Structures are given as structure tokens and as C-alpha cells.
């Protein structure tokens, strides 16, 4: 078991207020003690989280996961996270604090029987193993996902925005030529005069009334000729609705898109 210790500069790890005069920078950079040359630069965003970083440190340092030299790993860990902006660093700092706490626990004298002593690293090891296992599943999923992605099924709609259009290459000259061509082929605009047609709802009402009295029931198709003008159709529709509102007839449609059935309402007459 290693007996090395970690020196901490005035940086409180528990989130308490910074001591006056402490640069904000020092908050997230604990103890840059004379740095043993960092072997290589690590791109932190490449890590999926603090456990990922910790696992890769354990691999890089070639240490036994069941006997982690906490001080050494913690030092490496802190070195790597010093470049993180504070926002991203919270989760890393939490684990760093945990490492330091484990180190502190291990320095405490052990009382009692050796069997009852629980390694303070046990919980961390359990989490690391669990995380490592999950990473294996990620590898499997990644492989299977690529396998599936490499084959299309029917009707695989392109996701919106995924197939970006190639940028246009168009010069001003080409644009002007096009405008010129269009102006030359375009004829004088045709002007339509829109004549307002008045609806004849009253006429339609009297038509329906006279029909319904003798026939007792009718269908929409019988009231409106196939070649009816829009104003005739609209007049008839308004007439039917008006008569139904007055209670003189009932409108029914047995199923969607079926012809509307019109029935004389005998109760409406007295009302």
C-alpha cells in the first residue's frame, strides 16, 4: 500500500466559498504542485464522464483495479481535469473529492480485527466495474447499430435536414439573363373581372318546402343538379341549414361521404 499523500492548495473541494484572494482559477485546479511532466495531452471532452476518465487512467497506469493506488490515480485525475471549465467540471470534481476522501480514510489507523476492516475503495471499485461492464454493452450496441444502419428498410424516410442541398453556384450574369428571358416570353397579364353573384337562399327555401311537402323525404343529390353552379349549391346548403334550424326538416347522413338525407319534420310545423 502506497503511503504517498496529496497536497491540496487552498482550494476547497466541498463547494464552500473561496478564501479571499484565491483566484477563481485555483478553485478548479487543486495543487499544481511541481508537476511531473504530463506524458500527453488528454482531450477531456472525449471522455463520457468522470468514471470514463478514471477507468482510462487505470488502464494507462496499468494498475490493478482491485488495488488502486489512490494517491497516484487521484493526482493524475486532478491534473487532467485542470483545463475544464467550471460548469463541465462539477461531476469530475465530485469524483475527485471522493478519491481524496478514500485516500483520507485509508490513512486512518485501523482498529480491531483485520477481517472487519472494509476497504474504503470497495465502493469505487464496484462502480468502476459496473461502468466498465456498461462500456462493453456500449461496444456491442455500437457494433449492432452500425450493422443495422448499413442496411435500408422500406420507407426509411430521410431525416429532416440530413440531406443538405448542395450550395447554388450562380453568377449575377446568369441571373440577369434568366430575368431577361422571362420578361421577353411573358405576355401581357390577363385581367379577370370578378362578378359577385348573390345567393338565392329564399328561392332555394321555397323550392325545398314545396318538394318536401309532397315527397316527405329527399336526397341532396335530388335537390342539386349535377351541373349546378357554385352559387346554387351554396344557396341550397344555406336553405337546408336554415330549414333544419327552423325545425321544418331533419338532416341525416348515414355514413361519411354518403348523400345527405332530408326528411320532413312534422313536429316542426306546430312549433
Amino acid at each position: 500500500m502506497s503511503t504517498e499523500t496529496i497536497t491540496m492548495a487552498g482550494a476547497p473541494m466541498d463547494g464552500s466559498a473561496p478564501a479571499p484572494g484565491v483566484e477563481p482559477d485555483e478553485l478548479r485546479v487543486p495543487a499544481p504542485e511541481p508537476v511531473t511532466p504530463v506524458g500527453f495531452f488528454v482531450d477531456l471532452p472525449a471522455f463520457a464522464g468522470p468514471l470514463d476518465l478514471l477507468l482510462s487512467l487505470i488502464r494507462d497506469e496499468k494498475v490493478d483495479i482491485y488495488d488502486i493506488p489512490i494517491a497516484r490515480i487521484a493526482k493524475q485525475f486532478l491534473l487532467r481535469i485542470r483545463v475544464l471549465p467550471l460548469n463541465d467540471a462539477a461531476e469530475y470534481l465530485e469524483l475527485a473529492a471522493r478519491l481524496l476522501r478514500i485516500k483520507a480514510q485509508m490513512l486512518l489507523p485501523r482498529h480491531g480485527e483485520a477481517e472487519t476492516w472494509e476497504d474504503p475503495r470497495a465502493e469505487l471499485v464496484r462502480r468502476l466495474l459496473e461502468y466498465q461492464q456498461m462500456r462493453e454493452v456500449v461496444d456491442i450496441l455500437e457494433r449492432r447499430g452500425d450493422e443495422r444502419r448499413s442496411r435500408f428498410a422500406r420507407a426509411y424516410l430521410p431525416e429532416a435536414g440530413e440531406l443538405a442541398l448542395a450550395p447554388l453556384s450562380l453568377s449575377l450574369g446568369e441571373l440577369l439573363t434568366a430575368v431577361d428571358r422571362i420578361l421577353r416570353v411573358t405576355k401581357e397579364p390577363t385581367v379577370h373581372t370578378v362578378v359577385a353573384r348573390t345567393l338565392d337562399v329564399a328561392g332555394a327555401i321555397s323550392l325545398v318546402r314545396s318538394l318536401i311537402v309532397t315527397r316527405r323525404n329527399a336526397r341532396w343529390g335530388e335537390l342539386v343538379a349535377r351541373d349546378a353552379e357554385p352559387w346554387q349549391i351554396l344557396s341550397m346548403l344555406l336553405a337546408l341549414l336554415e330549414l333544419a334550424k327552423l325545425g321544418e326538416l331533419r338532416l341525416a347522413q348515414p355514413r361519411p361521404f354518403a348523400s345527405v338525407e332530408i326528411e320532413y319534420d312534422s313536429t316542426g310545423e306546430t312549433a
Partner: protein
Amino acid sequence: MIPLAKLLEAALFASARPIPADELSALAPEVSPAEIASALDTLREHYDVDGHGVELAEIGGGWQILTRAEYTEAIERAQLAARPQRLSAAALETLAIIAYRQPIGRTEVEEIRGVAVGSILKSLQERALIDVVGRAEGLGRPLLYGTTSLFLEQFALRHLEELPRADELAIALRPSPQPL
């Protein structure tokens, strides 16, 4: 090919999603599941042996006709279809945990990953790879998440059991945690 295999081929062609065997049975109620299975075998052989650009794959609890991998690049280059986007490492980690521990709550996922996963859960749910499958007992009755059939489909899995069992992975998982 026997008529049943042709019928299955037509149905599979018409569907954008994998069709489970029991739904295929509904196409021909008088036919036994064993006959359906053998007709599917016939169809698969037909594609594999006679040399077709598509293949029959068993995916997401059902059967689906897929283009062969060697033509993917050409199809994509011609912009006839686009591949679904890759998931980020963080999303994959979250998905892996849910696949193994479902039904599982957000806090448990975060405990394993060591980072917050709220927004990732939301986007995985939007992509219909996971869904809320219930609520845990206890304080706040937190939502529990599980994987969907689209998850199986997108990872070319027949069913969840196709993933290696937890104890088959290099290290044994800890015993399943107490419900929240």
C-alpha cells in the same frame, strides 16, 4: 417459391416495420406457425441463394426485408435514402444501462454513469428508443424507463435476450438494486 412464401414476401415488402411472426400468421389463418416459419426460410434462401439486392432479416421481434449492406453507400450517395444518425457516446451509455436494468429510474442511471442524464433521457424518448414504463414506489414516484421495439430494430436485435447476459460480460454485475 410456394404461394405462402410469395404472400409473406408481399406483406413484408408492404410494411415499413418488422412484422412479428404471429402477425404474419394472420395473413393466412389456416396455416400453422411451423409452415409460416418454413415459408420464411424459403424466402430467405431465395434471397440468399438466387442473388438478390435485399435480404430477409429477423429484427426487433419480427421479420423485415432489408437492402444488402454492400449497396448502402451507393444508395446513400445518390441521396435516395439517408441512414439514421449515430447516437452520441453519452446516449449509448444511457441506453445500455436502461437495456440491462429496465425498468430503471433516472437517479440509478446517473449513479452508474456518474453524470446527469436528464436531457439525454428526454432525447432518447423523443427518438422513441426508450419510453416510460411505469413509476417506482417511494418518494416522488419517479418515472421508470425501458427500451422500445424501435430500440431492438435500430440495433438489429431480435429480442433483448440477444444481448449477452450480464454475467457473460467480463465482470459480474452487482445484484440488482433495491427498488427506489
